[in-house]
């Protein structure tokens, strides 16, 4: 290479270095000691996740939606409808195995990252390694001071799933009527109940009800026990409350079986319910009916 070329190369390197040095440094985000919070760990399935190792992963995969300081105000957030990215700084999470109002377990967060949140813009990150997901859990936790001062809630006890029967499905329909699931989810589960159009999350963003008629997967899982957990723990921050004070564990399983009959996919519940010719609940015949 000639001297002239080397000179040009040097100019290019200098220009890039100046631009690099001129880049604004990361803003101080809260009063909490960022460095100390980066000591946060997670413990999942025998793996220890480290927030410091999660930082570059977060910067690559998560920052666009959840934002640099984890407040849910990433570049993409304004265009996300209807569900906005989670604000991690509050320590409020929808998908938990723990009672409403409590922090989720590390495993809850790990499962959410791996599974994604169906019907939202949060994809599943199963392509990342277990260690990487565990590191991300630790980094997500580091955003909220709650994780430094509180312990996660104790996961709710889920009794063993009973045998599904026609009587249980009918009992589940009665629970659906009694606790007025239909007000949001609609009498046939199409998310068109009388309250559906008014639903917002704790931050004032629209937060529509789950459409059982069209969707096969729930926001927080796919299994019967996942569904059980959803209405017994509630989806914190959303209009979906915890029903653990109103529904007994045995009734919860009945409700699970009935809700399965509203979904589009084939299931044992639908098979058993077919000859029952169950009619949708009649809001006018119910207390609080419209």
């Amino acid at each position, binding site marked *: *290479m000639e001297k002239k*070329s080397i000179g*040009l*190369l040097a100019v*290019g*390197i200098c*220009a*890039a270095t100046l*631009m*690099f040095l001129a*880049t604004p440094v990361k803003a101080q985000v809260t009063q909490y000691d960022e460095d100390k919070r980066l000591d946060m760990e997670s413990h999942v399935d025998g793996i220890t996740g480290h927030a410091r190792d999660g930082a*570059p992963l977060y*910067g*690559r*995969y998560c920052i*666009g939606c959840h934002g640099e300081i984890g407040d849910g105000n990433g*570049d*993409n957030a304004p*265009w996300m*409808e209807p569900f906005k990215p989670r604000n991690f700084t509050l320590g409020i999470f929808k998908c938990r195995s723990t009672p409403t109002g409590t922090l989720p377990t590390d495993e809850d967060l790990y499962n959410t990252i791996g599974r*994604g*949140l*169906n*019907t*939202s*813009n*949060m*994809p*599943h*990150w*199963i*392509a*990342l*390694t*277990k*260690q*990487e997901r565990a590191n991300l859990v630790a980094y997500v936790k580091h955003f909220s001071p709650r994780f430094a001062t509180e312990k996660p809630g104790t996961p709710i006890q889920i009794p063993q799933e009973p045998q599904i029967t026609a009587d249980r499905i009918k009992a589940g329909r009665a629970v659906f009527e009694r606790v007025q699931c239909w007000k949001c989810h609609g009498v046939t589960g199409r998310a068109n109940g009388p309250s559906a159009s008014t639903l917002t999350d704790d931050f004032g963003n629209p937060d529509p009800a789950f459409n059982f008629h069209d*969707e096969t*997967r729930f926001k927080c899982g796919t299994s019967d026990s996942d569904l059980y957990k959803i209405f017994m723990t509630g989806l914190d921050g959303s209009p979906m409350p915890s029903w653990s004070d109103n529904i007994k564990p045995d009734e919860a399983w009945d409700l699970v079986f009935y809700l399965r009959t509203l979904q589009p996919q084939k299931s044992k519940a639908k098979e058993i319910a077919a000859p029952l010719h169950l009619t949708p609940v009649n809001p006018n015949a119910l207390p609080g009916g419209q």
Partner: protein
Amino acid sequence: MLSPFGQQFKDNGYQLGNDRDSPIYQSPAYWPVAFRITPNWHLETNNHVVVDGPDGPNSVIKDVKTQGFDYTGMDMLTAGTLSRNVSFLLVPSSDETGAFHFESANVRFDNLLHSPWFNIKVGKFELDNLLSEKRILTLSNNGGFYQNYHFQPWVAPGVSEAAYVFGLGDNQLGVEWMGHSFNDRTRVSAALLEGTDGNPDWINGAGQAAGRGYEGYFAASQAFEVKGLGMQRVGGFAYIGQSPTFARFTNDGAGIPGTGIGNQSYYRVGLIGMWYVKKFDFTTMYFYGHDSAYLGTNTVAGDPLPDGSHAPAWNGALFETHYTFNKQMIFINRYELIRMSQQALDTNPGDLGNVDALTFGFRYYPFINSRAGFAFQNEYSIVWQKNVVVNPTTGTSDLTSSSLLFGFDFAF
């Protein structure tokens, strides 16, 4: 190269898989299109170029150096879903003169039979290369492509193969089946392709009439986790092609497109590994190529081969390293080599066409967001080719070409 998530997103037909991938869930104002171009300044040097001289045309060997401001071709990238599990990619591209062609135009059907193992893509698309030439990080004239992907042996010094032009990095026309495990660790694909190197209207990359004959590409890879280092991936690929050597019908001496016959075969196979060690990532590739003796000597099938002719064959290797200093700065280094193991003609020098190519540089992203892309590209590339120039005075000469490029690569 794609991250594990990016690879999975692509393999899932650019879908997140959250039951919200159909465009009916997008804002009506959203138009999924991006434009990409790179204004630049570059310096090109070529030694041993045959130029006109006092003794007539092509009578002198000179070093030729050019430099100045320039710009690249432009890509218009548009991709998205047409419906759930039906997605598209359309990339109209122009060269720097504004002449347009379609770089990609395909539709894909994903998760057929509710299985990630059944995905079909039809149209013009990039082969299932783990090392993508379309996502290459280098842009200069000498470093903006992979030598191994495009190498074809020389018939003799100064004489190229004439029957066909093929590049493993070029987008091709056809249909591809691709399958992958749910977490994308295991990937396999097979493609049935038109033998035109991606060109339409049954004219191949050499401007010759293509014929009736399909080509095949097969690829498979497996990712695995190394504790403390993350995901690594190894794979293999094979391209089996054929090229007509003459046209059955001609018009004013030119072959009528699609009437090429006298097919002769060629193939390329390779192994690839992609390794991640903290802020470093390495790509290693072994490559083997083979052409029919007819293709290698520009002989029409059925005619006698020249004395001392052979099916040319060669080995190649690639080592590419990236160092991600931080998310805004990435350093790039690549070394490729190609070594002929069998020349097409006994009269050729044994090292005719051997290639060494070195590229290094860095890309700096002053800002990063999901709505626009902008990088300051700095790159130097040099390529050495053995004995490919016919020297009027000394017989043959090596050709050394280099590029120095500073550019602003932007997309919006």
